[in-house]
């Protein structure tokens, strides 16, 4: 009996699926409390300004207005809003305040109104009279760095928020040793997370005077910590309710925004719950991927061995440091230092302030921005040198068992070469034709892009939260409730955790449930980010299940007249390993433990006892010491219309060293969804702003183009390589971010293979393709 395969590795339907197909009650957007008021923000029309005066009289006298806040009413203390590190962590740049008189980007919050209806709140906000003194503004990195550029923050030199350099080995010697040195510049753009559920929160005050908040977010404890800090409260006075799930996060709900603290303050002022939700236009000003320009220099020998690599990355952080300063680090480390094996590396990364909107977190967190450069340059080098891109990568790849270039620990499992070879075979890599082949304007091509070495959690990364805990209890019907602070952001984390617990405990997966929770009754968990759900939280719930099982077997042993170590469990039954007919149901054991005195039988109540009384529970609180390393290769086939420049992705093959697939449908879903985001990122999405005023030009889905079902390929083929990592629950590593890291380079390379057009800046729009073809 292989209990693991009944649950782990099977296509268990999402536990929330029936709820979601019949309406979806659990979204934070549906939270509706009695007496709830509605809040709206007023936002600055200017990108760089000082508030001179504020007059709220007209707004205040509008019937239905209950409270108004301006910068003069709130704390001016500064913080970093990012959830995954402590507010006063070393790596944090604490340059943001809740609402200040100094404006640093268009759309910055300058006032908040709570009213009976959202329309009244909006009307009142528009009646607030603010006089601004405009300051000169800069909307691109070059202008921000130029002599005489306006200083956006006092603490920076020349608007440089962060400037970091890494160097290992001897890059200069490495370049001297090279037969060829390649230098290219690549640029990526701003795209929006476009989670269909917007940022929303409802704040209230409970009978004990605690702030209670519901929010569409990716980190329960992060919100608590940041909110307590901004409100000047001890964390014990702030309670965050865990939502059953949220309508998408993608890394864009990993920080506190103005609405959470402002709704809490408005709620305290009015004595009523206050709801605040962002409109889609406001969403486009929030949570955009960091645009990064990369100058990449690589030295290679004629046989393709990389001898040195140097990269200079410049990131446009916008008005406040926020994620810019952390994305640049992940980008540099994972993009250039952990990538293809090379000892001689030099990287310089800068995060620069401009008066653009702040840059946020988004799947891959700097990884896609690097892979777009690295993976294209590999292709460019191979084309020049007549080398095969697959063999080049394998030659320069890390090897299983090798020491990690930066962190303690090894590549415990690493099957990147298998990903490359299996994917190549599946797509028909050997049948690629030279650029421009075939008759007619449509040209086809195949391209390869990879996620070379990613992470499965944030172990060994200083300053970041990386620990998880869970509680489990067994119920008298044999079901298990799992209490965890981990939030299901749409990937199906709830279901994966239930599968892991079910497999560990030996009960059917339908009998495991994620319990409701809040910050007062579950252990800490790091955010749902960094692809850590399955590996890190999965390990925590597995450990809690193992702990629960110990207690279960202790009680069961008294009922089966054996020792706990003689026992096993599967399919809801506990049995003696050597004589499985000696068995009792888990339900019976749990019921006995919960209520040991009396059992109801057909003859009436019978006295019964076990030395162990009390609900069977288990717990865990742990942090991983290593981070297993997944890898992926994506092969993409495109058709390019050389009359119009339009690119259509027609087929994708994605090969990923996953360790262990917990839920195949869920894993495939990550690949398929990641490809939609990658097609958008590479070909059509672009959050654009006016270059003179900073106003958003793409503030609805009419102007911001996201791929529909029509733009997606029919064939998306997933190859999951189960390398069975010892540092993952049931061998599982991670997946999700690689699904956005691998494709962009593959698409760009496919366009080149089809047409000979090389485009090094995103998005690769049809007109850029035509320009690269010399047709425009």
């Amino acid at each position, binding site marked *: 009996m292989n209990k693991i395969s009944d649950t782990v590795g099977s296509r268990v339907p999402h536990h929330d699926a029936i709820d979601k197909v019949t309406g979806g009650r659990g979204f934070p957007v549906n939270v509706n409390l009695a007496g709830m008021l509605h809040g709206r923000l007023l936002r600055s029309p200017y990108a760089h300004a000082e508030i001179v005066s504020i007059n709220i009289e007209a707004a205040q006298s509008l019937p239905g207005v209950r409270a108004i806040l301006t910068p003069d009413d709130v704390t001016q203390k500064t913080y970093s809003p990012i959830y995954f590190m402590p507010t006063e962590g070393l790596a944090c740049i604490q340059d943001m305040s809740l609402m200040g008189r100094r404006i640093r980007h268009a759309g910055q919050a300058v006032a908040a109104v709570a009213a009976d209806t959202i*329309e009244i709140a909006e009307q009142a906000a528009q009646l607030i009279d603010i006089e601004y003194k405009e300051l000169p503004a800069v909307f691109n990195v070059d202008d921000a760095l130029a002599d005489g550029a306006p200083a956006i923050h006092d603490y920076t030199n020349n608007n440089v928020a962060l400037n970091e350099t890494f160097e290992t080995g001897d890059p200069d010697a490495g370049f001297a040793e090279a037969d060829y040195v390649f230098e290219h510049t690549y640029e990526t753009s701003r795209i929006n997370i476009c989670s269909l559920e917007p940022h929303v929160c409802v704040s209230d005050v409970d009978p004990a005077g605690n702030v209670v908040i519901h929010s569409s977010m990716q980190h329960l404890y992060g919100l608590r910590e940041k909110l307590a800090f901004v409100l000047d409260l001890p964390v014990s006075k702030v309670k965050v309710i865990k939502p059953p799930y949220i309508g998408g996060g993608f890394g864009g709900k990993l920080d506190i925004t103005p609405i959470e603290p402002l709704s809490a303050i408005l709620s305290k002022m009015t004595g009523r719950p206050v709801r605040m939700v962002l409109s889609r236009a406001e969403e486009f000003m929030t949570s955009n991927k960091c645009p990064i320009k990369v100058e990449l220099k690589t030295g290679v020998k004629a046989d393709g061995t990389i001898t040195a690599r140097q990269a200079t990355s410049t990131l446009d952080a916008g008005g406040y440091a926020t994620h810019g300063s952390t994305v640049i680090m992940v980008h540099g480390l994972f993009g250039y230092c952990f990538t293809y094996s090379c000892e001689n590396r030099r990287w310089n990364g800068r995060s620069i302030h401009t008066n653009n909107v702040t840059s946020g977190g988004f799947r891959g967190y700097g990884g896609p921005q690097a892979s777009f450069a690295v993976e294209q340059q590999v292709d460019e080098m191979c084309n020049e040198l007549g080398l095969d891109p697959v063999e080049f990568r394998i030659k320069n790849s890390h090897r299983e068992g090798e020491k990690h270039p930066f962190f303690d620990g090894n590549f415990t499992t690493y099957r990147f070469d298998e990903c490359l070879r299996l994917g190549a075979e599946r797509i028909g890599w050997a049948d690629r034709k030279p650029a421009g082949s075939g008759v007619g304007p449509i040209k086809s091509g195949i391209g390869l892009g990879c996620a070379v070495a990613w992470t499965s959690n944030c172990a060994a990364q200083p300053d970041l939260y990386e620990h998880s805990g869970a509680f489990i209890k067994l119920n008298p019907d044999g079901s298990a409730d799992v209490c965890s602070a981990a939030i299901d952001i749409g990937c199906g984390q709830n279901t994966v955790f239930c599968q892991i617990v079910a497999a560990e405990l030996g009960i059917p997966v339908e009998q495991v449930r994620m319990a409701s929770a809040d910050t007062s009754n579950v252990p800490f968990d790091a955010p749902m980010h960094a692809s850590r759900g399955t590996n890190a939280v999965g390990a925590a719930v597995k450990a809690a299940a193992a702990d629960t099982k110990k207690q279960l077997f202790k009680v069961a042993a008294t009922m089966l007249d054996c020792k706990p170590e003689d026992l096993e469990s599967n399919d809801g039954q506990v049995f003696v390993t050597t004589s499985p007919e000696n068995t009792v149901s888990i339900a019976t054991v749990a019921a006995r433990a919960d209520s040991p005195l009396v059992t109801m039988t057909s003859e009436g109540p019978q006295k019964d006892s076990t030395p162990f009384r009390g609900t069977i529970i288990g717990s865990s609180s742990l942090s991983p010491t290593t981070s297993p390393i997944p890898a992926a290769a994506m092969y993409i086939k495109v058709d390019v219309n050389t009359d*119009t420049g339009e690119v259509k992705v027609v087929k994708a093959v994605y090969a990923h060293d996953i360790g262990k697939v917990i839920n195949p449908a869920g894993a495939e879903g990550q690949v398929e969804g990641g490809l939609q985001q990658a097609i958008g990122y590479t070909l059509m999405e672009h959050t654009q702003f006016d270059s003179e005023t900073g106003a958003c030009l793409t503030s609805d889905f009419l102007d911001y*183009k996201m791929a529909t*079902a029509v733009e997606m390929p029919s064939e998306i083929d997933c190859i999951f390589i189960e390398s069975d990592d010892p540092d993952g629950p049931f061998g599982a590593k991670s997946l999700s971010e690689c699904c956005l890291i691998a494709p962009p380079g593959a698409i760009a390379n496919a366009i080149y293979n089809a047409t000979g057009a090389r485009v090094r800046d995103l998005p690769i729009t049809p007109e850029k393709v035509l320009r690269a073809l010399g*047709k425009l």
Partner: protein
Amino acid sequence: MALTTLTNILRPTTVADVPRLLKEHGDSAMIMGGGTFIHGLVARGLVTGVEKLIDLSALNLGQLELSRKSLYIGASVTYAALERSSEAYSNETLHSLLDAIAYPPQQIKNAATVGGCIAGSCPFLDLPIVMLALDASAHVCGSTRERLVPVEELFVSLFQTSLADDEFMTGFTVPLPSNSTASSFEKLETTANDLSIVSAGVRLSSGWLKAKPCRIFIGGGIGEVPFRCVQAEEVINGSKLEDHDIDQAAQTAADEIEPFGDHRASAEYRKKMTGVLVARNLRQARSRLNQ
């Protein structure tokens, strides 16, 4: 966000009511077809001060009538209704109509009306280009008179038609010329749910040895109103419609148009794509002619 100034949605039951209401309420009233265009304008803050919307749905303007000489389309006919009835009127002359109505997503097709689409005077929409290519006329009703206005005379500037303040459109007549004609429409869009970057609608006639002019119109981000490629038409008129004629007409169209650039596409790209789309549509119309 709601249209906060809206106080009433009026639903007149006779055609004569409409000009009266328009006169009575002036600038504070707007006619609403399916509502898709109005909602779009409201969402972008382009509609301020509108207190009354005039809903035409009780006026029975949903007729679709094909006769030997023309197709009559009532102003309230939706894209979806046009699609459902397409077999009844589909022929080579009117094929561009089918081409255009295939584009929008279903939710838009179900709501958007032909009248609303034309009244918006927006070159980014598709039906106006088709109606121009097909030389359609609008049935216009005012307080004191009714008249027939060629669609070509309707579009004054972006969102502005030539109708008087008390006039509205009750339907459209699309002529079916006695000689053989064929039309085609195609647009370039970034995704399947998008306004056009550039669009083109053409109507060709088999009587090209006789003096029967072709019609070539461009929409998308090319100006305040759709653009007629007069010079390109001259290349086709009197030609034998061979490949080199089509290529020359396409190049002429690209040369004579001066589109604008915006965050969707540059002027240069739109210029070049005008040529591409004109060529494609001429070829498509030609092959339909030959069927």
